[in-house]
């Protein structure tokens, strides 16, 4: 293969070539290499994303949608190009169906306050699932408290599988919205979004998908999924912190009120009333996070360049390996299904060691694990625990990292037994 052809072929997840793009994997803790297994919390940015953001700073940083000189026009063009890139990443029909927000959390709050609040009242039901992160639970809880609507919860079985098909009222005449996670940030399970959306659509029930853990790990095609709303964050898919997006069908965006009011989102300002700009700018008050939008687009480029199928297969292999080792250990409780697919996330507990102690000890020898309730109190309550330890894989993890995880468990076992 010629040199140019070799470098044009995408780098495989877990390979040294991919790892070389992430300076974090070269960090050391107490003389050992950092083994980062907390990707569900946040992922790291490859050099290409940082370079794109730095190029913004060097070459075209300027006011977006606010200036008439060439630099401002270039900044605006790059911002809108970033929007278009995210639209392509999600296979939205139009880039105007993409609203840049601060995060998945902000995206969901925008839908709750700007769309759902005006549409529900006593007798109505908003549905969430037992798996939801607080960011896709609390906004709906508040809408219900304010409106008199009921918050319905789609339960899970002991394996963590959503029992949506045996929830008789879910598609009933009083259901106004279903909000569900695509990938559980605790169990790593993948919700049957497409099937659920199709059933909901038959009854005219809109669906919001929390894709925070899915984007960058699985294909997130909003047209194939058919959902009305989808929320995601850049920093969970190798992009920068501080930016996310809300996808919504244009007819939904047309119905939505903005959360924040201010510069850039208004058509006409009068003394007694004002009118809003069209979506998506209606929902982007204030100066946008230009560098982060550019970084977000570069992250989408990185993910698609590496190949979502390859990433998904890589995460699945690592997860299967880790599940096997954890199951063999004998003193580890694994939460969620043994046999259903997982998107790179495993929650577990030692029978005798508190998850915080496990995570602390693991951290001291360079293995970054998460411990706690993972902002999923309703799920923890169902699992009967206050918290779990969690390992979550990313594109730069490799087989040795599973060994490091098991070594951390061995160390904790020794220290605390």
């Amino acid at each position, binding site marked *: 293969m010629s040199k140019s052809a070799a470098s044009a072929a995408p780098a495989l997840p877990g390979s040294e070539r991919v790892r070389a793009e992430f300076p974090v994997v070269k960090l050391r*803790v107490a003389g050992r290499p950092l083994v980062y297994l907390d990707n569900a919390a946040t992922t790291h940015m490859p050099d290409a994303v940082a370079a794109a953001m730095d190029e913004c700073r060097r070459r075209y940083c300027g006011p977006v949608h606010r200036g008439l000189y060439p630099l401002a026009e270039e900044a605006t063009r790059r911002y809108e190009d970033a929007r278009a890139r995210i639209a392509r990443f999600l296979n939205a029909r139009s880039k105007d169906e993409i609203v840049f927000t601060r995060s998945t959390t902000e995206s969901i709050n925008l839908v709750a306050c700007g769309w759902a609040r005006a549409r529900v009242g006593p007798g109505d039901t908003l549905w969430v699932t037992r798996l939801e992160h607080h960011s896709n639970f609390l906004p709906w809880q508040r809408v219900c408290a304010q409106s008199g609507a009921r918050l319905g919860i789609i339960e899970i079985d002991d394996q963590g599988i959503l029992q949506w098909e045996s929830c008789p009222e879910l598609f009933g005449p009083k259901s106004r919205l279903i909000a569900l996670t695509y990938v559980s940030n605790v169990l790593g399970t993948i919700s049957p979004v497409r099937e659920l959306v199709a059933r909901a659509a038959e009854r005219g029930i809109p669906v919001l998908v929390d894709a925070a853990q899915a984007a960058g790990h699985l294909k997130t095609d909003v047209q194939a999924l058919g959902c009305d709303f989808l929320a995601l964050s850049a920093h969970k898919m190798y992009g920068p912190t501080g930016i996310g997006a809300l996808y919504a069908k244009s007819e939904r965006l047309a119905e939505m009120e903005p959360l924040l009011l201010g510069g850039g989102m208004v058509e006409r300002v009068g003394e007694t009333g004002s009118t809003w700009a069209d979506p998506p700018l209606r929902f982007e008050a204030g100066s946008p996070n230009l560098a982060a939008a550019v970084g977000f687009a570069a992250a989408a480029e990185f993910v698609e360049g590496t190949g979502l199928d390859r990433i998904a297969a890589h995460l699945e292999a690592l997860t299967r390996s880790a599940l096997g080792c954890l199951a063999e250990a004998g003193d580890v409780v694994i939460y969620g299904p043994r046999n259903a697919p997982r998107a790179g996330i495993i929650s577990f507990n030692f029978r005798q060691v508190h998850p*915080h*102690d496990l995570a*602390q*000890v693991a951290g001291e020898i360079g293995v970054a694990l998460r411990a*706690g*309730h993972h902002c999923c109190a309703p799920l923890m309550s169902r699992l009967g625990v*206050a918290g779990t330890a969690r390992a979550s894989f990313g594109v730069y993890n490799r087989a040795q990292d599973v060994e490091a995880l098991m070594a951390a468990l061995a160390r904790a076992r020794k*220290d*605390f037994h």
Partner: protein
Amino acid sequence: MASRSVYSEMLLDHYRHPRHYGTLDRADVVRRGRNPRCGDEIEIAVRFDGDRIGGAAFRGRGCAISIASASMMTEAVAGKTTAEVIGLLAELSAQLAGIAGRQTGPAPAWFAALAQIREHSARHRCVLLSWEALAGAIKRDGR
């Protein structure tokens, strides 16, 4: 990044062999401390002897730090006045918060073992859970 383990030998010893674990005869107050974020639950029982701590015991479940801290506390407060106990809690809190306090001589080994968790802010509540429960018991008893 921190290079010293949170889990000193002393801390691990108190975790593996907690002192005064269980109920307390003729307890005057029993008070529970709970950290909903991690599920640590410590119940403190205390017996007063005038204005002094006549005895303290604890039970509950939690991480190694919360258990060890409770164990160290039950040893450290025995015989101390309630004012001294409140003062100890204030000093421990200040140490964890990184606020320099008055140093009157070398700190006891148990205090140093807990204070060195200062670098790990996520575990401060684990250290203070039992102490705050004891302080609550003292105040509730009107001392």
